[in-house]
């Protein structure tokens, strides 16, 4: 009995000790730890941000612990409690839900740990001022970029559809920017339907299939990210309508860039995850240096169309 217990303890300890060693091997002098939780680490966009943050923070002697929020706001809140208990030096948060993350942010702040948000803002009324700085794409402006691309590609007339993701504040802003740009320019494009594509390929494929049934006469689709846009493309290709429906995505992900090059998408307003990751780490470092920080640091999005894709080494290297 006792021996078995000892053995079990040893095995548990060994597994955990191994995992610790593996992480600390590449950064010999560690000053502290930064906890970060992303809404979905299976999404390559966030994976890249987490990796870039890890690299950038290591330059200053900080280790980044990146956890997956797995699209579960309650899980993310308990991750923030754990960061607070462990007394990390900073927490970078990319919330699943801009409102419910507030309770976790309050806990981290109460433990004296500076909180930074990236990509998705914290909107909970009693917590948003606790965030030292937000670093993210200018999603509203990115939506405007998408609208400009859509107007150009469709000749500014006809019916269009939007595949949105209302769970995410950054995606809401994209759609808002898109609509605002159409309105400001007195566009003749008519938005006939707006459905939730879940930001994923499979779901967007089926939603788009249904849209084609309900509105066979559409001339364009704006999808709030590339997976959604590519799902829409799959549906449109299956229906044999690729020649008369244009698709605008968002992100300029590796797959999105390739799709633009193959003329599956006409444009995918480019986000800069590296800038976002580096910017977040820099904001923390500036905070440690006692500098004044902007409450919101926005990184503008840029057009990524066929011309941009032709000689783009990042596309060929399958990089963001």
């Amino acid at each position, binding site marked *: *009995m006792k021996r*078995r*217990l000892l053995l*079990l*303890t040893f095995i*548990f*300890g060994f*597994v*955990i*000790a191994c*995992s*610790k060693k593996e*992480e600390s091997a590449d950064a010999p002098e560690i*000053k*502290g*730890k930064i*906890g970060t939780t992303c809404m979905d*680490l299976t999404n390559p966009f966030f994976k890249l941000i987490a990796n870039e943050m890890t690299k950038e923070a290591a330059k*200053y002697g900080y*280790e980044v*612990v*990146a*956890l*997956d929020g797995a*699209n*579960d*706001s*309650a899980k993310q*809140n*308990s*991750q923030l*409690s*754990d*960061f*607070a*208990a*462990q*007394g990390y*030096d900073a927490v970078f948060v990319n919330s699943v*839900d801009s*409102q*419910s993350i*507030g*309770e*976790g942010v309050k806990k981290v*702040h*109460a*433990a*004296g740990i*500076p909180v930074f948000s990236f990509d998705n803002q914290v909107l*909970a009324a009693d917590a948003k001022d606790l965030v030292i700085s937000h670093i993210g794409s200018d999603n509203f402006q990115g939506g405007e970029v998408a609208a400009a691309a859509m107007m150009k590609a469709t000749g500014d007339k006809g019916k269009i559809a939007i595949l949105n993701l*209302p*769970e995410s504040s950054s995606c809401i802003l994209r759609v808002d920017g898109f609509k605002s740009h159409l309105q400001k320019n007195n566009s003749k494009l008519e938005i006939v339907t707006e459905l*939730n594509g879940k930001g994923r390929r499979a779901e967007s494929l089926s939603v788009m299939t249904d849209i084609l049934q309900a509105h066979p006469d559409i001339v364009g689709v704006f999808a709030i990210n590339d997976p959604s846009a590519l799902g829409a493309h799959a549906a449109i290709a299956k229906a044999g309508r690729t020649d008369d429906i244009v698709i605008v995505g968002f992100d300029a992900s590796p797959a999105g860039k390739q799709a633009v090059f193959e003329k599956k998408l006409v444009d995918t307003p480019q986000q800069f995850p590296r800038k976002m990751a580096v910017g977040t780490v820099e904001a923390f470092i500036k*905070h*440690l*240096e*006692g*500098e*004044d920080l902007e409450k919101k640091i926005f990184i503008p999005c840029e057009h990524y169309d066929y011309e941009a894709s032709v000689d783009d080494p990042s596309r060929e290297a399958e990089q963001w």
Partner: protein
Amino acid sequence: MNLRLKSIFNDYGMVIILLVLCLVFSLLTIQKESPDSPSAARAMAEEIIRAVGPEDTGIALGAKNTSSADFVERVMKELRDLENPPTVKAVVGEPRDLRIALEELAGSDSELTIMVATGDTAKWRILEQIPDKFPQFASTKITKPEEGLTSAFLKPSNLLAIVDRIVVIAVIAIGMTLVIITGGIDLSVGSLIALAAVVSTTVMKAMGGLDAPNHAIFVGFAAAILACGLTGLLTGAVVAWLKVAPFIITLGLMMIGRGHARGVTGGFSIYQVPDGLTWLGQGKSLGIPNTVIMLLVLYGFAHFMMTQSKLGRHIYAVGGNREAARLSGVPVRSVLIFVYALSGVMAGLGGCIQASQIATGDPNMGNMYELYVIAAVVVGGTSLAGGSGKIMGTLIGAFIIAVIQNGMNLLGMKDFLQLIVFGWLIIASAAFDQLRRHGGLKPLLSSPS
């Protein structure tokens, strides 16, 4: 006596695994922490007195909201009690506050001779940059108090965080244990969490939102628990009368519940709720967190019901052999309806707690929770075949899951590794329990069941 001890040991052997896990995580999360004892504060005060002359100034640095802020306060108190207190400025806040304090000092004639950087403030980069940014302070002595060792896992705030993390799953696991003991399963509980959370918060929103009176919270919770209880009643009725497999009916309700949760809210989360909502999941009564009280009361009651009451014996009987139970006069249908209704009520309560914990009703809450609940029950020693199981075992099972999750986060384990280790630890816990029950591998291999 010895026999009795042995039987307790056999019943709740999972306690050992829980304790082993706690021990391992306590040891692995030992880290340095700034001191906060009175003697350390006195020593620090003495060092300051030695360094700060009559014309000089010193700075005691603490990080906002941390123990270092309290330590600075202690040091300052020691200094204030002196006859001729030296000029020492307490700077408690962010690095920015230190910069501002230094800028102010740079304008005065006083010389800054010592700066005490306690706790996390020792890592502030502004300290390294003083020679560049404030050349006049380049020779200032920066001292960092000796750090002591402490285990992050064993910090009271962390232990309470473990309870907070598991309370929803543990509460629902009570109902699930009963369902599984009758030989059934309830897959709908994860969705019912979301349903309860959005129903309760929707009611609160309708009754005034942020300014809703406190009774709106109770009305909201009651509506949510009632809705989930009725769902459970329906499940029980279908299982008892139509003899539909519980797996299928609850799988259907899992989708229906999720769909309604999204339908009620239009897919958005509801955050227009009164402040009082957080009382249940975050508040305290008599200094004890409500979540802890709730777990103790609910588990105490369920334990009593399962071990002392006729209903408890009936539940075991239905799971052991339904036909035999029926023939010996157990009201099988009523028992089935009761356990599923209770499971629904518990899921409803769990959803209310979850909504209270994050002050939001999110229709995507509780995704996959049914599996964690089932895992807690099974790790706690209840057989999926029905007929056997212990309520207190389930509580321990739930804590095992929570401790593993918490410990891995504390260790900063990478995400993919967490999944792998978590999976193996669950399997290892359950396998170890089987070995222990049967007294080793040999008897287990030779026993027919």
